[in-house]
């Protein structure tokens, strides 16, 4: 697969197609606790949306809801044209979720992990190897069992699995956590390539300086609600204030 040269972040005046994510007053509960208490959000195709906000604000639940893992208690939610109330499973082929846990099999080697997750999404061996090389995992590291990797290396392996899935909607929950400097550069490059290939990305992160460089829009999630920030303070390419 020929390396795609990084495309500058698309301008925000993208044609208003059907929104990739459309949430209206969504309530979702974790046990008894209303993690999402009437959140509303709309994300257009190709956007890189940064979710800012304190811990326990509901960011993780919001991402898991968009991935169809959390049932909707109230409100309406549509992802990639599918109504989450009636059919949560249909969207899952097109969605890639990177949560706090990496979802790796400790006993299997890096290559076997990425091959397994890639195969489940129908990726060919070529794409799997490309994902490995892109994350710098194709050398000696590929044969090391995932259990023996450092946190950063496990994050990269999880990212490689994500790339091999070629998802249209990326849901990244604090992807920078645990990555060293060049790991973060790799991550930003991966996100840019994904957007270049037409994916939409939702990033929940506390690393604001780095994430802002990528984000086309920033919203704050607090108390289970989404508060839209004014779009002008997003996107380094428009010289937005920090």
């Amino acid at each position: 697969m020929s390396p795609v040269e990084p495309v500058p972040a698309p301008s925000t005046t993208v044609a208003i197609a059907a929104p990739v994510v459309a949430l209206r007053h969504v309530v979702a509960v974790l046990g008894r606790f209303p993690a999402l208490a009437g959140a509303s959000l709309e994300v257009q195709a190709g956007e890189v949306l940064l979710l800012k906000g304190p811990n326990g604000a509901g960011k993780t639940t919001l991402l898991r809801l968009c991935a169809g893992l959390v049932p909707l208690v109230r409100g309406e939610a549509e992802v990639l044209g599918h109504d989450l109330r009636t059919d949560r499973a249909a969207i899952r082929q097109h969605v890639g979720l990177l949560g706090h846990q990496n979802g790796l099999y400790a006993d299997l080697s890096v290559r076997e992990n990425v091959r397994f997750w890639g195969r489940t999404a129908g990726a060919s061996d070529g794409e799997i190897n490309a994902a490995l090389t892109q994350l710098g995992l194709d050398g000696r590291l590929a044969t090391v069992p995932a259990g023996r990797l450092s946190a950063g290396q496990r994050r990269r392996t999880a990212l490689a699995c994500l790339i091999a899935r070629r998802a249209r909607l990326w849901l990244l929950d604090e992807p920078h956590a645990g990555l060293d400097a060049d790991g973060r550069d790799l991550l930003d490059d991966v996100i840019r390539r994904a957007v270049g290939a037409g994916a939409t990305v939702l990033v929940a992160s506390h690393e604001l300086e780095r994430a802002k460089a990528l984000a086309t829009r920033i919203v704050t999630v607090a108390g289970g609600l989404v508060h839209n920030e004014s779009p002008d303070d997003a996107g380094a390419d428009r010289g937005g204030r920090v």
Partner: protein
Amino acid sequence: MWRTARLVAAKDLGIEWRSRQVTNQVLPFAGLTLVLFAFALDRDEITARVAPGLFWLATTFSLIVLVQRTFAVETADGALDTLRVAGVDPAGIYLGKALALAAQLVVLEALLLVGVIVFYASHIRPAGIVLVIVTAFLATSGLAFVGTLYGGLAAGAKGRETLLPLLLLPVVAPVLIGATRAFEAAFGTRGGEGIRAGVEISDGWPWVGMLAIFAAVFGAAGVLAFGPLLEEA
């Protein structure tokens, strides 16, 4: 569906091949239960007479340990969530995991059979070999289907370690009864009357029929029910 099943089965067996946890821990556990039974029952005529029952009891207890292991692998690093997000056909996951579980069970049963012959001086009538193999195959597939189905149900639950035996043991009762009676028909102690006076090989076959029904019913039920169960785990 079958592609996913092969994929998941290969992954499970790959994990077992790498970690060797089943071979190093579960197989000795099964052998140990045979020895403990011998201690408890003390006299040889008794153990020889109930050898088939002890064989399937040891297999059933090992089944619980194997099922807990196969789903612990999934929940260890959140792979269960990633499996759901992968959007693969749940029936494929079910069949894959059942296949891997069945493979491990067959290896376990082969060793147990040797153990039973050695420890309990049981003797399989030459004509009974076919019955033993067919019974073992059907009972194993039944146990694997039921184990994977209820393992999936209990996988995400909080008290899953104690919930699984409570759910699984009543359900495997028919297999325990059927497989043991079929084995009794195949076994025969050296000299002396058979396990039960006048038990012929042919008496075993109706039980094999029942085991086949059990495996078929739970195979179909699993394919249908595993998806919704995995969804809520």
